[in-house]
């Protein structure tokens, strides 16, 4: 990656404030006139361990050789494959999810056929089987670039002119900020826990009845900021507190949120007198409300749908250039009709029932991604280019799952395994390709040549290699990072 003047200035700015000062306090060093045309990164977390041999790299029993009965492979009829794509799909129909007596039916084939040209699978072997540690390493490449997360790197590259360039709705290690103290402050992730009601915290006064006018409110804010706080003994005593300095900066940034009317633009709820009485309180739904509700009709019950909905609205309104969403570890089911939307522990329910948990959860996150892609494709970025033309969905995963099963069992538990891989969906990546491969007799994945993409049996791809490949596909300037060139992961590179 080449070095340039902007990179030098960013480095100098960071060096000037590095050390004792919080990243959040570092200034935006890139002016609007310098901002690159943004690319967008959506991280969909495979919380609990999304196993690729239970989706795009599935193995048939007839391929697994003598050990098939004790390897995590499928009845031949349950795995679908095609001549024009290396991906496979697992389609299951069962009467229960482990001990949960709720039937389910999955169809990965539809996703593969629809998105195969933008889909890339890269193999990978991680370094931790602890959920939180592995989750964080999945987004930092095991501290590949000073501990900067993928999302922070993208926000630093493209988010200088955005209000909240990096919004994170995940939990655990996927939510943890990186540790790169040279990161520009604006690139630090903004955590969001309740995406459906979060827009109500994007204005300090709208939606509250019988208040003074905005003009008068600004007088009070000025009094507080410039007189009461500035002159108080409390502030003078603790002025050096990073928390207070951060608070001052956050107050400043918060005004930008109000000016953009995000309390309206990001609000997916319609006006429902009684339960969501928007108009009674002077509020309104987003102009995109109906569109996103059609795409994610269960957003009031399913937090992941609400997250995806907000992810789209944040990108569509150019508030963010990277958004992270994640299923939670909490069970989500309905009894009438019976449906299990999210098993307890998400993908990690594989401990109890591997095959069912993987099937239900893959269906869940692929379905969410599919709808997000549809929305992004239908929305123009500029000059005929769609938002999807500038986006990437990275299916992060904690780790893989163990590859064995009790003899011929179709319902079994699995543990954590370092060996796995990642799925990536984007026009920027080397689509319709599996980089690396899987040994059908062990179910272990192997790596690939970073330049040509040719499979290399015996090679394990490192976390930093995948991290680098994703950032380079997103055209993030990583000069000076020492990250390897992963040309094979980029489209037409």
């Amino acid at each position, binding site marked *: 990656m080449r070095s340039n003047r902007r990179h030098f200035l960013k480095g100098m700015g960071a060096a000037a404030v590095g050390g004792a000062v919080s990243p959040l306090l570092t200034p935006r060093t890139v002016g609007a006139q310098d901002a690159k045309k943004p690319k967008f990164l959506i991280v969909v977390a495979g919380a609990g361990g999304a196993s690729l041999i239970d989706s795009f790299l599935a193995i048939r029993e007839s391929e697994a050789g003598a050990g098939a009965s004790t390897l995590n492979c499928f009845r031949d009829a349950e795995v679908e494959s095609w001549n024009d794509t290396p991906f496979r799909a697992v389609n299951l129909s069962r009467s229960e999810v482990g001990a949960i007596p709720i039937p389910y039916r999955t169809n990965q084939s539809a996703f593969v056929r629809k998105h195969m040209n933008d889909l890339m699978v890269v193999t990978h072997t991680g370094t931790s089987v602890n959920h939180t540690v592995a989750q964080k390493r999945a987004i930092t490449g095991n501290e590949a670039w000073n501990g900067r997360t993928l999302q922070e790197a993208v926000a630093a590259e493209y988010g200088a002119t955005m209000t909240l360039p990096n919004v994170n709705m995940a939990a655990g290690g996927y939510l943890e900020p990186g540790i790169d103290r040279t990161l520009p402050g604006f690139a630090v992730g903004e955590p969001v826990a309740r995406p459906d009601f979060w827009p109500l915290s994007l204005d300090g006064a709208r939606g509250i009845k019988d*208040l003074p006018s905005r003009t008068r409110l600004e007088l009070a804010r000025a009094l507080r900021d410039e007189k009461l706080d500035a002159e108080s003994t409390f502030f003078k005593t603790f002025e050096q507190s990073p928390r207070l300095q951060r608070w001052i900066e956050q107050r400043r940034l918060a005004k930008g949120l109000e000016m953009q009317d995000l309390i309206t633009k990001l609000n997916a709820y319609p006006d429902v007198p009684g339960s969501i009485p928007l108009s009674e309180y002077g509020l309104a739904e987003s102009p995109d409300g109906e569109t996103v509700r059609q795409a994610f009709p269960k957003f009031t019950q399913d937090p992941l749908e609400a997250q995806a909905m907000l992810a789209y609205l944040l990108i569509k309104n150019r508030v963010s250039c990277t958004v992270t969403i994640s299923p939670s570890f909490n069970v989500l089911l309905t009894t009438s009709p019976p449906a299990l939307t999210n098993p307890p522990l998400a993908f990690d329910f594989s401990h109890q029932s591997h095959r069912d948990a993987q099937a239900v959860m893959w269906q869940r996150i692929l379905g969410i991604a599919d709808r997000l892609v549809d929305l992004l494709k239908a929305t123009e970025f500029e000059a005929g280019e769609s938002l999807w033309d500038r986006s990437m969905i990275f299916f992060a995963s904690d780790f893989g799952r163990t590859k064995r099963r009790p003899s011929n069992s179709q319902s079994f538990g699995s543990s954590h395994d370092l060996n796995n891989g990642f799925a990536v969906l984007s026009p920027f990546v080397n689509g319709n390709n599996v980089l690396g491969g899987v040994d059908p007799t062990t179910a272990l994945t192997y790596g690939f040549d970073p330049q040509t993409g040719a499979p290399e049996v015996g090679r394990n791809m490192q976390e930093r290699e995948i991290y680098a490949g994703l950032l380079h596909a997103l055209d993030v300037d990583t000069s000076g990072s020492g990250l390897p060139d992963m040309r094979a992961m980029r489209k037409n590179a």
Partner: protein
Amino acid sequence: MFRKTLLIATCTLLFACPSSEPSEDGGPTRDGGPGSIEDPNRDGGTTVTTPSFLASEKGSVRFKKAKRIEADFATALGLSEVCTELGQYSCSDFIHRITLGGVEAYVQGLNEPLPFTSVTTPLAVERMALFACRERVSADFGNPSSGRIFLNLPLANGALADVEAEEVAASIQRLYQRALLRVPTPDEVEHHRQLYRDIEADGQPNAARDWAVLSCHAVLTSMESLFY
């Protein structure tokens, strides 16, 4: 015996060391640090007037977070309920719970509070303060003689007849004593009076009520109120 000897020795050392602590009256120190008396010739031989506090080198303060903020606002303003969004959703327990540093393990799976305040935290705090202040002021203005904070203000057609009136200063003093547990400085009282003059200058109605709500808002959302 040994412990007693050790205690005496420690005390002796402490008294012998140069102190950077403020004097008993909280006055200036003598070690050249912030707030110290130093170099009488520096200002043409006149002793420099210094503030009567010692700036903290570590600056270790914490944000109060949702439940404590709600409890403090409720206590300060004498309210049983501080804030509900859209007339029904609790601010501290539901809508702004995580933004204000709370946790929500059962639905969100968020077992640990956020490690820092977020960009939206100041706005969420302002909403809580505005809800609460509106309620307090409505009650006080509805019953001027027996209110909690804004008592017996000289009102005339929605305005303060005399912003210099003693009742105005007394209201500000009650606000500070209840919200910050201290009396306001004369400068602070004057700042609030000036806020009223600025509000009144726009010629819009309800200047007195708006001033009361916004004075309350400014104090409750000050850093002194929100951090400890």
